[in-house]
């Protein structure tokens, strides 16, 4: 796995021992199974689903055990099995972001390296668009769980730099 940061973008690349079709399917159809469990937006209980509708302009949203659904953003591109793009309409305090202009963007590309090997590249761009939200996040950062482990994560990263 490799990663680098450029401008306001984050890029992470990983090689997966699976066909490009399977890699795309697991990412888009089984997001709930591998997406870190603490990540949920709604006030309900545990997350029970994370749905990416298989079409451009589709929704992507969570389901929680109280039956509620809460949008995480919009599906910007869905080109199976090679490219998925999502808007990240989530504030730095991990609340729904109603202002589209403050959403960032996640692009995931799947490139076959043979029948059972796929390179998955994820680019999260436009993080500077969350700027105002970051200011509001200041108080929330101290509380554990508001945006899970942000300061700890940052500190760990810094320690290993």
């Amino acid at each position, binding site marked *: 796995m490799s990663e680098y940061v450029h401008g306001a973008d984050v890029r992470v690349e990983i090689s997966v*021992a699976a066909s490009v079709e399977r890699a795309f399917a697991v990412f888009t159809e089984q997001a709930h199974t591998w997406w870190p469990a603490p990540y949920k937006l709604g006030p309900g209980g545990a997350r029970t689903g994370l749905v990416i509708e298989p079409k451009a302009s589709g929704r992507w949203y969570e389901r929680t055990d109280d039956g509620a659904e809460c949008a995480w953003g919009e599906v910007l591109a869905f080109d199976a099995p090679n490219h998925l793009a999502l808007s990240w309409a989530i504030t730095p305090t991990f609340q729904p972001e109603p202002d589209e202009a403050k959403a960032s963007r996640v692009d995931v590309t799947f490139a076959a390296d043979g029948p059972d090997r796929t390179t998955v590249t994820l680019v999260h761009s436009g993080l500077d668009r969350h700027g105002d939200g970051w200011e509001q996040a*200041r108080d929330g950062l101290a509380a554990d769980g508001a945006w899970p482990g942000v300061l700890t994560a940052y500190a760990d990263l810094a320690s290993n730099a």
Partner: protein
Amino acid sequence: MGTYQDSLDALGDPTRRAIFERLGQGPSAVGELAAVLPVSRPAVSQHLKVLVNAGLVAVEAAGTRRIYRLDPQGVDVLRAYFQRFWTSALADFAKAAEAPTEEEQQP
């Protein structure tokens, strides 16, 4: 404005991390930080200087006092956070993609 590497380097020091995390709870003056941390006021000032140069902390004058806060324009924290988040999430994704499918698990 510091570079991304500057900000990581700046937080490589435990005292600076403590100051940074304390500012995460709200703006503070040097004296307030020195009161809650086991370091002298001049040492706090020196560490704040590094954090400001790295683009992580902003300073503004309030009368005769200088108030320090996390830089609201700084996106380095968000970048670092997402770099770590996606690295971890994609590792979990790879495990799921590489796990045997239900059909393959049948005897």
